[in-house]
Each structure stands twice: as C-alpha cells, then as structure tokens.
C-alpha cells in the first residue's frame, strides 16, 4: 500500500516536472510590444521598429538607393543620423505592397532587440511615407517572439556586448 502510494506520487511528480519544463520552453518566447527600439549593428544606430505581423518580410527605410554590381548603397533617414551603408545583396524579392508588386533588394542585417542579437533578412525600400524606418515582419517574429498588442516598447535594446 505504502509502496503503491509512493510510486503513484512519484509518477504524478514526474508528470508535473515534464509539464513545467514544457511550459518553460513555451515561455522562452520573448514578449514584445507593437513598436520596439532596436540597435543596428555594428553601427549602433538606434531605430524605432514597427512590429508587424501583417508583413511577410522585414523592411528598412533606405534613401538614395544605388546599385553597384552585387552591392547596394543607401542612406538611413536623416532623422536617424543619415548613415551611409553599403551591403551585399543577398537576393531580389518581389514584394506585394498595398500598391502592387515591387522588386526590392534584400540584405542581411544584425540587430539588437531586448538582450539578444539577431541576424535577419530585410528588403530595402524608400519608406519616407511611413512612420517607422524599420518594419519587423513575420520572417523575423517567427524566430521566438510573441506580440502583446497592449504594449509598446516592452523591451529595451540591451545586448551584453553592445553599449
């Protein structure tokens, strides 16, 4: 009887441990708001980003965009320092916008969001009409984020090796 009881309680406990570990892995996801500040690395430029589950891919506001063989040169908006960047083109993508199809160059960026660094693909477009210079779309958000729509700026960019 005693042995049965202890066996039973051990079984319950093991099941519980499994349950907790499963929940913990679900909670590893970082909760972010609908806008977040990120650092563009390695330049440490701080940009506000719109967290957009309606966008399939991320995109960056690139001004004065020019092509040089397999590289693309552009400026960040003046408001965020107007830094001139030159990056290799990873691919060309047809992007469906509210105004139709557009062909855009795609580059790889490293950003710091919250306490982690991420490498992600973004397409480049002149987004001067739009409020946020960086849109983080589903290709990025699928990595490990959930968006809490009640919140804005839920995490501060604070990567250990970036100051």
């Amino acid at each position, binding site marked *: 009887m005693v042995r049965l009881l*202890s066996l039973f309680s051990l079984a319950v406990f093991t099941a519980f441990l499994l349950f907790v570990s499963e929940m913990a892995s679900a909670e590893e996801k970082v909760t972010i708001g*609908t806008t977040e500040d990120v650092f563009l690395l390695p330049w440490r430029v701080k940009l506000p980003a719109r967290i957009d*589950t*309606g966008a399939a891919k991320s995109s960056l506001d690139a001004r004065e965009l020019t092509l040089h063989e397999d590289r693309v040169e552009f400026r960040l908006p003046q408001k965020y320092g107007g830094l001139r960047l030159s990056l290799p083109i990873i691919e060309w993508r047809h992007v469906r916008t509210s105004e139709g199809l557009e062909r855009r160059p795609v580059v790889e960026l490293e950003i710091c969001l919250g306490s982690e660094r991420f490498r992600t693909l973004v397409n480049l477009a002149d987004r001067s*009409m739009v409020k946020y210079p960086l849109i983080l779309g589903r290709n990025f958000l699928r990595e490990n984020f959930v*968006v809490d729509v009640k919140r804005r700026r839920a995490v501060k960019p604070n990567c250990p090796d970036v100051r």
Partner: protein
Amino acid sequence: MFVERGSLGQESRSFLRIKMVSKQTQSQKNPVWVPAGLIFLLVSMVLLLPPGRGRAGEKITVGEVEDVVLIPWRVTLPARIDTGAATSSLDARELIVRNNIAVFRLPKKYGSLQLSLPVTGWQKIRSADFKERRPVVEITFCMGPKLIQTQVTLNDRSTVSYPLIIGRNVLKNNFVVDCMHSNCLPPSCPEVPSP
C-alpha cells in the same frame, strides 16, 4: 534504519530477509512519512510553478491567421492578424454607399453574401500617389472565445489573400500574437451555437 542500509550489501541472505521484514514493520509503524513525503512533493510543485502564469493566462494567444465567424450571418472568414494595421478592414466587393448605407458583397469564395450596413464614419487613406476615402461600418464577429464588436473599413481587397484584416484596434483587447502558429484558436463563443 541507517545501519541496515549501510550493511545491506555484505550481509547473508537470511539476515537480509530479517532486516527487510523489520524495515517493513518499521515503515508501517511510522505512517507519518507517507503524508510528509506527499506534502513535500506538493510544496515543491507549488514552488516550481512559474510566477505570473495566472496573469499571462488572461491574455488570449492568436496565430498569424485565424478563422472568425461573422455574426449574425455565421459566415466563417480567415482573418490576417495584423499588428501593423491600426484599424481592421473587410474585403467589400461591388461596394455602393447610398443614403449612408453601405451595400456590398463578401468575396465569392466566402459565399458572396450581400450585406447592407449603416456607415458610421469615413477613413481617409493617404498613400504615395492617391487619396481615398473609405466607408467604415460596424461588424460583430467571434474570434476564439470572444465576441468582438468593432469598426472596419470597407475596401476592395481582391489583390490581397485574406478577406478580413484584424488590426490593433481589435487586438488591443488583450490579445497576444504568436507568429509561429496559425489557426490556433477556433471560434468558440458561448453566445454562438456551433454550426
């Protein structure tokens, strides 16, 4: 007990049997260990529960696409969950506004039901090369366990994959979006009997 355990390996068989018998009677004599063990397990379970779980539980997690049911017509539409859109919008075909009533059809794919709803406002759309005014109507739909009454702008969205875009005006209502999933929350409003 302690001495017994330490010497178990080296003792003769008969001695072991005697020891085991005495062990059994001992634990039967001290049944207090069983509830104590159970209590210990329970306490550790409570301590292991991650904090704030109850609070997070109030939020409703939706995926990047969810089926919703338009009320009272009980038409099921797939909706794109769009944190980038400030307001929600509905694909309206053959849209005509007369006497402040918007008359339109849902896309053929979803039964092309004809609806006429009072216009509650107009939304100005500014975009790179055109200006537009779109009528706003109020609709009710069931998303997950929640019945949601909300304003949607009407426009022809035939170029876009989803007939309904659910924007931040609805999602602010305590929803959390997880893009790893879609259709993780089948409509189940208590007020709406399942079709």
